[in-house]
């Protein structure tokens, strides 16, 4: 039968057409890059290898970097968010107690709840970066060429920076707590992260110092941009570490090395909203956001810290970052920094230097644009500007990680506490008089030199994430009000003072850590602060 053959041939024919190796050739294109495609890329363009290294820095302030764009959390922006959280837990940095405030967990101190996203992000971003640093250290650690050695040095400095960020979250100050449990150490040698107990404070500092010493021994002055680490940055991180540990003289010496080649911003330069551009000569190190990362994104410092973005929680929902009036009132009128916040009457001289939608000067304070800009509230900050222009929607503000001003104050503090009070005082007065308040005197505030330096840090570094770490190392209480409600502009629910030894100050490890790392013993003790608690506590600065 002839047709038998025809039909069988036909079927056999199509069978051979489709039977091939296709199942091994299904790769994604775009969106995600697989490991195989990476190898392919590196073969074709070897220079692309550097992208991983760049990624280690790029992730630091990436919007939605921890939970992904799918979740789109407005508080998911890495180290910047951690800095704002640290300040919002402090005394000087205030958000209103409204439904728009994603940082209310910090204002009210529910950030100790182990299943909350806020402590998760603050913790995860650090270890995500540590992992990348570790990967670089293991893959390039044995190489002898200058470029690889430089990268490893930067990775070590990053790792040290990361641990130094973590330490004050989970344990009290170094002095007296060296043997208390701190955080788990993860290095390429860590056998099993799933059974990795908390290292002691001493062990963590040992790692930090070893890494920084290694980095400093390799790094020079050159770098690709201010997001990267050079010797200045490495010295600066070590200055901080020494400050935390109480190695005062070393802290001063390192700070001096860190600031080499950098000069503070002048009075003129900070008489307009600024601190958003890493190119500024006073920035030693910063997080640089690209326009693409930041376009129209709420998870950015522009959305939470600047009062001048048209796509922001601050202006859009009146969730402005304000200064505590207790600190504001301490700033002399002659200090240019008095203008970094609008006063009770919504006035600041800085506003006359900018315009938004045709409004200029104090008219910006009261400007209302439906869905875009709510009027300012008293003590709204105008310290931070908009890199891409006032009233724009591109939230690509850079975020300062280290400014020369911090190093000057660090140097002063190190000297003051290592017995060189006179020199310290001179450095302090030189800086403030030249760059902030021509009629400054270190004693006019009536504070001890140490407290005066802390006061300067609180004013100068407001909104940059130093408050809680300073409290921790200085053994200072968090003083948000004095005796009564009228003393502060803190929302009622956030109005309380915290004793420096309150165990509630220590963060709790996230469920996602303790559930998967059996060796972690969590911090305990204390309870959520109650409104108006400890009304008589004082911190030596706002007394």
């Amino acid at each position, binding site marked *: 039968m002839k047709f038998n053959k025809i039909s069988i041939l036909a079927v056999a024919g199509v069978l051979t057409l489709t039977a091939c190796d296709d199942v091994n050739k299904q790769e994604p294109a775009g969106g995600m890059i697989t490991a195989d495609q990476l190898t392919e890329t590196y073969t074709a363009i070897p220079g692309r290898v550097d992208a991983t290294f760049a990624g280690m820095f790029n992730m630091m302030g*990436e919007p939605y970097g921890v939970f992904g764009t799918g979740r789109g959390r407005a508080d998911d922006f890495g180290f910047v968010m951690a800095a704002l959280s640290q300040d919002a837990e402090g005394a000087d940095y205030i958000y209103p107690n409204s439904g728009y405030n994603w940082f209310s967990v910090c204002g009210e101190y529910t950030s100790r709840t182990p299943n909350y996203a806020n402590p998760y992000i603050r913790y995860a971003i650090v270890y995500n970066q540590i992992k990348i640093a570790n990967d670089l250290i293991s893959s390039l650690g044995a190489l002898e060429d200058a470029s690889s050695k430089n990268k490893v040095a930067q990775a070590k400095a990053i790792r040290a920076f990361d641990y130094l960020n973590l330490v004050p979250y989970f344990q009290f100050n170094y002095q007296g707590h060296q043997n208390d449990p701190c955080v788990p150490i993860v290095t390429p040698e860590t056998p099993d992260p799933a059974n990795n107990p908390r290292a002691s404070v001493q062990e963590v500092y040992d790692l930090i110092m070893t890494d920084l010493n290694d980095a400093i021994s390799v790094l020079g002055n050159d770098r690709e941009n201010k997001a990267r680490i050079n010797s200045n940055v490495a010295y600066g991180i070590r200055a901080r570490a020494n400050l935390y540990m109480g190695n005062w003289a070393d802290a001063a010496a390192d700070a001096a090395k860190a600031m080499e080649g950098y000069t503070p911003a002048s009075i003129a330069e900070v008489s307009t909203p600024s601190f958003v551009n890493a190119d500024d000569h006073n920035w030693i190190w910063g997080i640089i956001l690209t326009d693409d990362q930041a*376009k129209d994104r709420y998870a950015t410092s522009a959305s939470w810290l600047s009062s001048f973005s048209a796509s922001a929680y601050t202006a859009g929902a009146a969730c402005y970052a304000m200064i505590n009036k207790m600190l504001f009132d301490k700033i002399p009128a002659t200090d240019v920094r008095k203008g970094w916040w609008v006063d009770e009457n919504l006035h600041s001289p800085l506003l006359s230097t900018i315009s938004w939608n045709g409004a200029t000067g104090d008219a910006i304070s009261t400007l209302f644009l439906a869905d875009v800009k709510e009027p300012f509230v008293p003590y709204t900050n105008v310290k931070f500007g908009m890199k891409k222009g006032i009233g724009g929607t591109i939230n690509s503000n850079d975020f300062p990680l280290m400014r020369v001003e911090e190093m000057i104050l660090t140097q002063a503090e190190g000297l003051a506490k290592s017995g060189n009070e006179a020199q310290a005082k001179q450095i302090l007065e030189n800086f403030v008089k030249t760059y902030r308040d021509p009629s400054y005197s270190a004693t006019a505030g009536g504070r001890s030199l140490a407290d005066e330096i802390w006061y300067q840090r609180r004013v100068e570094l407001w909104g940059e994430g130093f408050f809680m770490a300073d409290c921790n190392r200085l053994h200072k209480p968090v003083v948000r009000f004095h005796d009564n409600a009228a003393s502060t502009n803190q929302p009622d629910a956030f109005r309380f003072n915290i004793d420096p030894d309150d165990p509630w100050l220590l963060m709790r490890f996230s469920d996602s850590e303790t559930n998967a790392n059996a060796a972690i013993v969590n911090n305990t003790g204390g309870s959520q602060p109650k409104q108006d608690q400890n009304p008589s506590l004082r911190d030596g600065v706002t007394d």
Partner: protein
Amino acid sequence: MEKRLTLFFVSLFLFVGSALAQTKVSGTVLSQEDGQPIIGAAVQVTGTSTGMLTDVNGRFSLTLPEGSKTLTISYLGYESKTVNAKNGMRVFLKADVAALDEVIVVAYGTQKKSAFTGSAAQVDAKAIEAHVSSNVANSLAGAAPGVQIINTSGDPTNSSPTIRIRGVGSMSAGNNPLIVLDGMPYDGALNSINPNDVESMTVLKDASASAIYGARGANGVVLITTKKGRNQDAEIKFDAKWGSNSRLIPQYDVITDPGQYYETHFKQLYNSQIYNGKTAGEAYAFANKNIYDQNNGGLGYQIFTVPEGENLVGSNLRLNPNAKLGYSDGEYYYTPDNWYDEAFHNSFRQEYNISLSGVTDKLNYYASAGYLKDGGIVNNSDMQRYTARLNVDYQVKKWLKVGTNMAFSHRDANQPSYSSSWGSSGNIFYICNMIAPIYPLYVRDPQGNIMTEDGRTVYDSNNTNFKRANFVGNAVRDNEVNRTKTYYDNFDGKFSAVFTPIEGLTLSANLAVSSRNSRENDLSSTFGSASATDGGAYLYHFRFFNVTNQYLANYRTDFANNTHHLDVLAGYEQYKHKYQYMYGSNDHLFNPYIGELGNAAGSDNKQMNSFTHNYMTEGYLARIQYDYKEKYFLSTSYRRDASSRFAPGHRWGNFYSVGLAWEMSKEKFMQNVKWVDMLKLKASYGEQGNDAIGTSAGSASTSSTTGWFTPYADQYESSYADGYSLVLKYKGNENLTWEKSKAINVGVDFSLFKGRLTGTLEYFNRKTSDLLYYKPVPLSAGNPTGQYPINVGKITNKGVEFNVVGTIIKTNDIVWTANLNLTHYKNTIDELDESVRENGIKNSTSIYEEGGSLYDAYMFKYAGVDKETGQALYYYKEKDENGNETGRDLTTANFSQADKYNCGSVLPKLYGGFGTTLNAYGFDLSCQFQFQLGGKIYDGSYQALMHTQDAAGQAWHKDALKAWTPENPNTDVPRLDGDTQVGQSAVDRFQISSNYLSLNNATLGYTFPKKLITPLTLTSLRVYVAGENLFVLSKRKGLDPRYSLGIGGYTSGSGLNTNSYSSMRTITAGLSVTF
């Protein structure tokens, strides 16, 4: 007639052949019941294999071999008959009442139900047509044992329910069944299929039925078969429906009186002080100062006018009786609006379908066209669907039949802004459910008139002199001015050629192509939330392209005097899936109403993106089916499958099944048991695979970090700024391979009392091993997703299913039937990864522990209210001085001290459906119910409505009024003082019974008598009214337990219900005419 025809196609290949010519005999086979010809009846020369099937007129013609005189005529559903051969003979067959529903659609073909050794549930066209739903899957709800339908949205544009068959077998991999449309795997949108085109849906539940689908059959298979021609006389059918959609689930029982709301909020502010050591005077002063201060826990708005010098709430904490609703500050007048009533409304639904079909000796055709316009329950929410289908088979040669089945559908959809999981200010459903009853929706001038601007209504978006404490913008306004329009084009085509080279052997080649293109145009209006950018346009293009190649060889034969029947199938199947995505957006729209990039002139915020994902499976399959005297049945299958989701070397898996059945009623010893028509015992065992790990396509998120189609590979994301930067986003696992499930099914099918009572009882046990599982790693490990995929662990789903259909009354004029199906199953985790065996895997609201289930809730336990203080009490685990748990549970008012507990499985103990149909004197009445018993669900919406002070301005459930006060100490609602520590944590206090009873469908129809309509040249005419989704009875008003399986928290669980598109009720009237 449909039964007879289905069989016609099945058995077509059985008997086509040649025989030696001797004496020529021709005749007709007719049904004794109605005298209509029987198509496809087997006419066989007795004792030989010579024979043929009757044609579409019931006619046959064959030549008798020498010595043969009798013919045996058989047809399924009829008693077979042996008669003397006579030219021109007319043979009447008597219906065999015991043999109802003889043929079912199975994997790669159809099968006599009696020969089927597996477990399946079938829903026929009649049941599907009874539903007024744009989605064919909804007709499975409550209709089939072992099948759970979870409707996650009532959105008319996007209502594809989740289907779960016999429990949940995977942890991190997909649990969706494989959908097979006309024999080919289908990945299209289920609501692109016009339910009117569907002949039947079969759910294959056990391994022997579905293991042949190997790769993707582990979660069950749903076979959808579209219609074909039925009668020689062309049939034209027209169907029209008009109806109304309305919101099914009511709002929770919230405080609607603005005064009461203020009063309650005032008390909370007062309590926050009085329980913090303040005096009554201080507390009152505090509350009075802050009640309007949205930045201090207050509500922001003043909407009552109180006489000069008086306060809104008096020192007795009651609303000032002199307070008058409505307040003017000279610039605006403030009075609350009912957002819920303003936003929700009924809408019109209309649907028209026309089909024509017929059969000639060589051609079978079915063609249809349909139009549907389905409205939503808020503005700018609707869908129009145009569908067309052409299904043709042509017998080209005796040995070659070609066929094609092509369907095109186009949908236009308008979607409101909402999310299925997340409450946000832009989500219209969330806002309308959650906003306090004190806020105006519109801005009014001092006279109280709603203001307009350039003809547009001015909505209150915090643009007056007051600011809300919560909820930025105005979602109702945004829904009016913004647009999300989606256009879908779907083409599904199947092309097949069937060769019959020798008797009994068929070789078929099938090619199926499915192409889906959708384009979404989002307009964010400058009159709404996009005023900062002067309007934005967002464009999304999704393209799916699937190709299935399938080559099958099937040989059927019988031997030893037709006592042994053998059916062998072998084949190759390959499936390729391509998903392509493109996105672009820009702002500054010149014309504020056009959401296209060409109308967007912005320069700063231009964004674009695109990517492609590929996925493929291929496999070799074989099956042998054998029976002896149609009494003992054996079915066995094997498949070797590869999936591109796994790394080379881990791609291929082997899957197989064995099924046995014994039709006991055919044994001699059963012949005298007259009341038993049929009794069959069956058992099967098989192994299947599951590869569904990673993100499935369709998600608009490009930064999804769950692995896509290559979960085995490490994945990075790149960006550029002064050089390239690369970040690891996903940690893969090269060793990842198939998740395997081993399923046992044992059952009995029965038919009693001449078919008056039929049913099935089955036991199943499905063990899944090598689970595809995203293993959590500690955050300190720095893995960007906090997890990586491995094969570990074992889960069992075992249970019992029961299905029964009874005919209660059967006379010439009245037939009354009732049906009931029940499923009980238990989900057990048998084994977990070693690292987590001791403590289990703790998710935010669930816990996986050995011996527990995948649905064990994990949350804080509420210990009631401290009668003295009114504080909420929570349990915690007592520890001795060494930190070891003593086993005792203590209570604390300090939430930070409380512990989370495993609160047990939330899965229902029993679920099912029941229904009834009454046909009497031309009237037909039917209804179908669905229910669930013994489970729990987390009511996150209720938790949000029982909020404390951190949610000022959010609606309040009336239960909050039962809060503890010194005068009301015996309550389980703690005092209102802002227990902010609990926040959004999951507490078992908000868990509630998930029992429900729903009336899915009720239909009343009338079919006009033939004598009335014949003069109108009509064949049939039926008018009907139908109600779909008529009611859901649940434990709490506002709760829809059908939204999830029960696990959840504040923002999930039933919380979805208020954040997403609520379910709709549809009532329609229609008529159906056949020419």
